[in-house]
């Protein structure tokens, strides 16, 4: 083989020499790639092995800490210095603590939180919160919410107007979770409009993560953001805050169509007694969109005659609202027939 290669180098044609060079280059590249793959694979196996060992050590240690009561603060520090040196190891420790926190409640959870501080994992969380990298921030806020780390409130609040939706959502989740009596205080600090998904999310968090007194939603009726005002009206109706009806009525005269429409819709849900008269008096001067809202709520706030009287008030060219009206009318006729039968 060596002789053959030497022969080509000394006596071979140019094309053969080029061929030989390329063969060697490709051979070296292939060798490099295969070695890299093997090396990475080996690294991955090592990492997985280390991770498994760490998970096991953490799980055993936490169980002893929670249920054995024979550990001293020194043991906790020793475990930390031996097993939780790198950021990676600390992240795994946080993940494990969260699994325990998720499954246990009562004094066990308080102990888990204490261990979090004894292992100084709050430092990593704080570092992540200040990192400026959105996924690290979102993860750190999530950890803070799950472990109810109230000390990070100011830091988390600074991410309320983050460009990333994920960070904003985690911040909302945190602020509602840690709150004891003013869960929506953060709305005062919001500068970017809250999306429909965020509104649903806030509503859900309020129901599942907060157990204090329900706030007076009228506080945010005059917020600078329309989306917050709309959310506030929705919540007033959702939580049947009848005492706030008077504060919602002025929005029937709002110049912003969406606020006016929301006021009509939610006042109807709250069964505001003077809404029908308002609808009758102003229907002709309303925009097609507002007319649509009125048509939809008529049956709820009035009787069938009230509803049918509006048929002649819809202009012939307003085909959209005529269609809405006719659909509701046919549904109504079907329902009446089925009741009669």
């Amino acid at each position, binding site marked *: 083989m060596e002789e053959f290669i030497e022969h080509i180098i000394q006596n071979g044609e140019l094309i053969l020499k080029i061929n030989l060079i390329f063969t060697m280059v490709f051979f070296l590249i292939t060798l490099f790639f295969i070695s890299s793959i093997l090396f990475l694979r080996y690294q991955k196996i090592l990492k997985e092995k280390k991770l498994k060992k760490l998970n096991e050590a953490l799980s055993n240690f936490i169980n*002893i800490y929670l249920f054995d009561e024979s550990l001293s603060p020194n043991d906790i520090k020793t475990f930390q210095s031996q097993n939780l040196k790198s950021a990676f190891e600390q992240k795994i420790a946080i993940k494990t603590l969260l699994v325990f926190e998720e499954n246990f409640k009562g004094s066990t959870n308080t102990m888990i939180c204490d261990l979090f501080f004894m292992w100084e994992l709050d430092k990593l969380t704080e570092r992540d919160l200040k990192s400026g990298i959105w996924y690290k921030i979102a993860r750190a806020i999530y950890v803070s919410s799950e472990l109810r780390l109230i000390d990070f409130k100011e830091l988390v609040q600074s991410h309320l107007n983050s460009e990333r939706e994920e960070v904003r959502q985690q911040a909302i989740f945190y602020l509602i979770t840690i709150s004891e009596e003013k869960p929506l205080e953060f709305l005062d600090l919001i500068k970017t409009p809250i999306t429909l998904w965020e509104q649903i999310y806030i509503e859900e968090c309020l129901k599942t993560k907060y157990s204090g007194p329900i706030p007076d939603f009228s506080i945010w009726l005059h917020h600078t953001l329309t989306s917050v005002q709309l959310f506030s009206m929705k919540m007033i109706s959702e939580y049947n805050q009848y005492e706030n009806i008077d504060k919602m009525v002025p929005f029937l005269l709002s110049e912003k169509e969406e606020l006016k429409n929301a006021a009509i819709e939610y006042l109807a849900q709250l069964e505001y007694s003077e809404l029908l008269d308002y609808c009758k008096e102003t229907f002709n001067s309303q925009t097609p969109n507002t007319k649509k809202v009125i048509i939809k709520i008529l049956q709820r706030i009035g009787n069938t005659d009230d509803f049918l009287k509006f048929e002649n008030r819809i202009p012939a060219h307003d085909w959209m609202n005529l269609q809405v009206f006719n659909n509701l009318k046919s549904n109504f006729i079907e329902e009446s027939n089925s009741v009669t039968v």
Partner: protein
Amino acid sequence: MEKILIIEDNPMVSKSLEFKLSRDGYEVFIAEDGRVAKEILEKQKFDLILTDLMLPFVTGIQLIEHVKAVYPGTPIIVLSTSKQEDIIMDAFNLGVEDFITKPFSPNELSVRVKRSIKSASLPEIK
């Protein structure tokens, strides 16, 4: 020493339960799914069975049916999430003794386990 069989597919939870109940003085056996649990149950009888409802291969309900048919006197405590209301009702209808929702307090679990074993060992009043 009383024997307890834990059927739970989350290894971290089953390990904690094993740890806690061992410390309370019980001999604890673990099955990660309903199929393994059935195999263990074929070989020995337990003083109490602690089971999740959402299990792979054999569901918690099928397992409860099996235990109640083979060992009618063995008390069963269900450890599950509160969202599974319809399944919880089925479990109670099958004669489950107690129900604990996740997240749970390990101390409360200890008390309930102790109480269930004690009630099962009392002679029936005729």
